[in-house]
């Protein structure tokens, strides 16, 4: 069974927010839209975003890491938001594992957002329905789009290609390979939600310097030594004494 998901590579994510606004840009005019903004030009503007980047620091100076952590609905295989929904508005699609909300059935009770341990759902305060990432379900099957563009908007825009998209149940897929080979992990697996989205950790590349690499025989400094021509010796030498 197919389970579509995002695999997000924290090793290259620079926190640029391209995924945040490209998501909003596509989806506000798409089938999951509109994505409203409150006080768009006023005090404390706040709007609906399906995807946000959280940035935080780890450690104390100078051993500090700055982490950028993009987060959206993780499309759990055991989504806690679905069984709690009193109207059946929240549901998980059989065919591709995407978790969606039927706005017609949603009554905005927020049970699902309380049940979601990841804080991935956003209530649209104006429409009073729950909204969230759809993995751009209105793009990925759109045959009017070139095949290369049948991807979520965030994946297409990401400048560091930190966002991989595919079927995590297909062991030959790019995402499965990345999870397998680059220590992909799930968020809070102890909750038993089996999030489909995975994250790839930071990795450090270091260079080991060997002592014998610091000075070598082909060191160009040797070319700077003066080519010396000694004056003829003044005292006695072997030349004065030998009898060959």
């Amino acid at each position, binding site marked *: 069974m197919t389970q579509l998901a995002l695999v997000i590579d924290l090793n*290259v*994510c*620079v*926190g*640029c*927010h391209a995924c945040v*606004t490209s998501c*909003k*840009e596509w989806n*506000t*005019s798409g*089938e*999951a*839209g509109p*994505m409203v*903004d*409150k006080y*768009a*030009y*006023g*005090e404390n*503007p*706040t709007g609906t*975003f399906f995807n946000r980047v959280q940035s935080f*620091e780890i450690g104390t*100076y*100078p051993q*500090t*890491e*700055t982490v950028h952590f993009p987060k959206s609905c993780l499309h759990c295989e055991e989504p806690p938001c679905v069984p709690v929904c009193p109207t059946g*508005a929240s549901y998980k699609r059989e065919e591709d594992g995407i978790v*969606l909300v*039927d*706005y*017609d059935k*949603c009554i905005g009770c927020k049970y699902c957002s309380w049940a979601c341990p990841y804080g991935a759902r956003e209530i649209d305060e104006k*429409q009073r*329905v729950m909204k969230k990432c759809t993995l751009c*379900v209105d793009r990925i099957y759109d045959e*009017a789009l070139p095949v290369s*563009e049948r991807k979520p*908007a965030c994946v*297409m*825009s*990401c*400048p*560091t290609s930190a966002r991989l998209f595919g079927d995590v149940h297909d062991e030959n897929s790019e995402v499965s390979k990345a999870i397998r080979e680059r220590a992909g992990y799930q968020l809070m697996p102890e909750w038993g939600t089996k999030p489909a989205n995975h994250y790839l950790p930071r990795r*450090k*590349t*270091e*260079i080991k*310097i060997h002592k014998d*690499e*610091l*000075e070598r025989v082909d*060191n*160009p400094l040797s*070319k*700077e030594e*003066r080519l010396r021509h000694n004056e003829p010796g003044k005292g006695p030498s072997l030349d004065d004494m030998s009898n060959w």
Partner: protein
Amino acid sequence: MKNIPVVVETEGVEVKTTTCYMCACRCGIKVTVKDGEVRYIQGNPNHPLNKGVLCAKGASGIMKQYSPARLTKPLLRKPGTERGAGEFEEISWDKAYGIMEERLGKLREEDPKKFALFTGRDQMQALTGMFAKQFGTPNYAAHGGFCSVNMAAGMIYTIGGSFWEFGGPDLERSKLFFMIGTAEDHHSNPMKVELSKFKRNGGRFIAINPVRTGYAAIADEWVPIKPGTDGALLLAIIREIIKLGMYDRDFLVNYTNSAELIDITTDSHNEGMFIRNDEPVEEGCFDPQNKYWWDRVKDEAVAMRKEGVDPFLTGEFELEDGTPCKPAFQLLKERVEAYTPEWAEGITGIDADTIRRLAHEMGIVARDQKIELPIQWTDAWGKDHDKVIGNPVSFHSMRGLAAHSNGFQTIRALSILMTLLGTIDRPGGFRHKAPFPRPIPPCPKPPTGWGDVKPNTPLNGMPLGWPAGPDDLFVDDDGEAIRLDKGFSWEYPLSVHGLMHNAITNAWRGDPYPIDTLMLFMANMAWNSSMNTTEVRKMLVDKDEEGEYKIPFIIVADAYHSETVDFGDLILPDTSYLERHDAMSMLDRPISEYDGPVDAVRIPVLPPKGECKPFQDVIVELGSRLKLPTFTDENGKRKFKDYRDLVINFETAPGSGIGFLAGWRGKSGEKSMKGEPNPNQWEMYKKNDCVFHYEMPKSFQYMRNWNRGYLHWAQEHNMIRYDEPINIHVYSEILQKFRLAAQGKTEGRQPPDRLRKRVETYFDPLPFHYEPLESQLTDTQKYPLNALTQRPMAMYHSWDSQNAWLRQIHTHNYLFVSPILGRNNGFEDGDWVWVESMHGKVRCMCRFSESLEPGTVWTWNAIGKASGSWGLDAKANESNKGFLLNHVISEELPPHDAGDHVSNSDPVTGQAGWYDVRVRVYKAGDNEASHTLPRFDTVKPLPGMEKKRRNKWQGYVAGKFRKTLGRSGGLK
């Protein structure tokens, strides 16, 4: 329940390509337009620059297009009202043109220098610079002087190229990459694309920066450094590289002036100059090969590059005539002798062992991980090579090094380090982008005296050029400045991008002279683009004793209600980037790639809003009305209908075949780079995604300073005047010429006495480190901290951080401080504090951060806005919690021996020393209000802007803001 109809994407939908302008990157975009409104903007996968990706700004272009801050009508300050009061009346374009034609026409006829044109964007200089030159005013510049001119000048005067538009790190093949200082906003998307590939390929990335933000977040190692001390670090690394013999000797001998002999006779006009033979020099040759080496084997001076000769790089020698001399490299070696890692540790805060290790990593990777590409090429001296060699260590740097008053020499040190490692225009190192490399220095020269500025006559020379010695300065007989901003004077001799940051102050003071009309395009000089913002705002409205404004007339061209608009007398509404034609031209700053020239265009995807006109069309119209030579024929008849027409038909000289665009030239578009105007050139760009990419043969893609094939090709296509090798200036004889003049050792132009010591000190032909000028003049006991600014990624280089979506990411800024600073000074995370310099103080909120060098405080720049501007409510966070650090940064240094009003800038290039300010931070009083200070009176929306502030709720659906949002919809 009412359903929101499912958006049907096929009816009335069109996809058009153009070029983004949400920042200065200029990515290719595809714009989906539905029923004439923007549905979606995505990166163009076929574009060489961004390859389909887009950033947060690019994806928020819709909110720029539909911003309530947009101006739509030409406006004139109401008669009888005060400038700055925001009282305007709508006028017609005809009237606006009439006003400008009359005023500027008179100035051109009487005293052209009284018209000053300064533009915030330096990617349109091919047109704006041409207009200024044709008008005849010397007073023109773009924003480079307060941005990164040190990076351009420091590198171009050393290696003939620089970063960003001019060149960059070859991350495709690099193994070790250093990013020094904040540099992310220059070439941001391409850098992100390459950086992630680099990391995935196993490259090691080291970030050297006082602050761990930006791309430093994903660095393998972060090396915190004290601001303004990078020169000390680089010089100590150079010392270590030389000491251990880790330099690329072959590269230094063959491609730089390292082995060339320098006269070290003291007290002579030749002191510090290369010894030259008397062979005649070809006319116009910029770097004649008439110097000497010292032959290692024969132990005698020989003509440089003599076949079979291997020269000494070190030592002291004597010519037959008794002249003492040393190779340039020997002088560099002597220079860095005292710059030990221990010395640098005390200045930079980086421990000596780390400095040594950084040098070792660079040296070992460059030497032991050599790349050899099987590419045949021929060097400028005719020698064939069967491979291209690369030493895979690369660097990127921009404002972090540049925006200090010691930046030029720091960047010289960086360029020399890159050279020692043998990385210039080689795989895995630094690579040029066409039309670079240029001769050192590039050929265009500024005018040289008052004789070059005449009424009704174009300026004799380029408003901005590249001096090669004191004779190229633009000064009067007393050696004093001719330009309003004092560019190319002895105060800032190599100010190749001008000093826009001093234009208003100088005009206000009337020093060197008062002007009449100041025209600003896309330059927010009443806010974040000025140093000393509070005072500059006062200068803009200040009057003389007769009650006349000290700057009599100000024209502002802008697409938005920026803070500067209210200070204009005449306001010209510009279009958005989706509504205009534009050329990213070879004559300007194109978007070339390492493999060859690339230029691009914008083609409107929407009609102009209201009565907006593209500024380019305004310039063409004005040029035609004023009958400027380029814009009219000998009978005064207009040559170009509009900018679109000019781009096609303009040639640099009649029949030159060189114009704004390099692609699809020739009558039917069959030629590249050079060819007759093509009437269908725009259509051909349109068919090709608005971009032209000329991929050169592999043999022309490397070693271009010395690559005969490339240099011939570049000359044949008029990209370069001479096909001579461009040898790297490890030692800068150009700087020495200025120094000799300052020392009174040469005939000819001499600096005024007050500047002799300054020029002698800072025009050192070899890099050195000195404390930034402002620090030298500050009581650093009282103001111990360094204060910096950066821009956040969602707003790099952006012109509209009021954007409805982007402002939700950064709606106000904090002053980031070390918790140690807070603990020692009695304030907590989130407290209101004062940040104070010797120039002024700002009240703001602080945030504790562990990712900064503890002696540094910093903030996001240009998040703070003046109340009511940019279409924001008076209550908007930007003007209440957001703040601008500019209020504590001065555009001038305190009076000192070089003068009372010397710019707070690099003494070589005039680069604004934004990052030199020293501050202290203390807790705001418990009784103080919780908002930022200084604050300014709320400005009101202008005529032609949206009358009504937007609703509490805004929901955008493909060009329509839904007034009634139903409760239903969603995915079934």
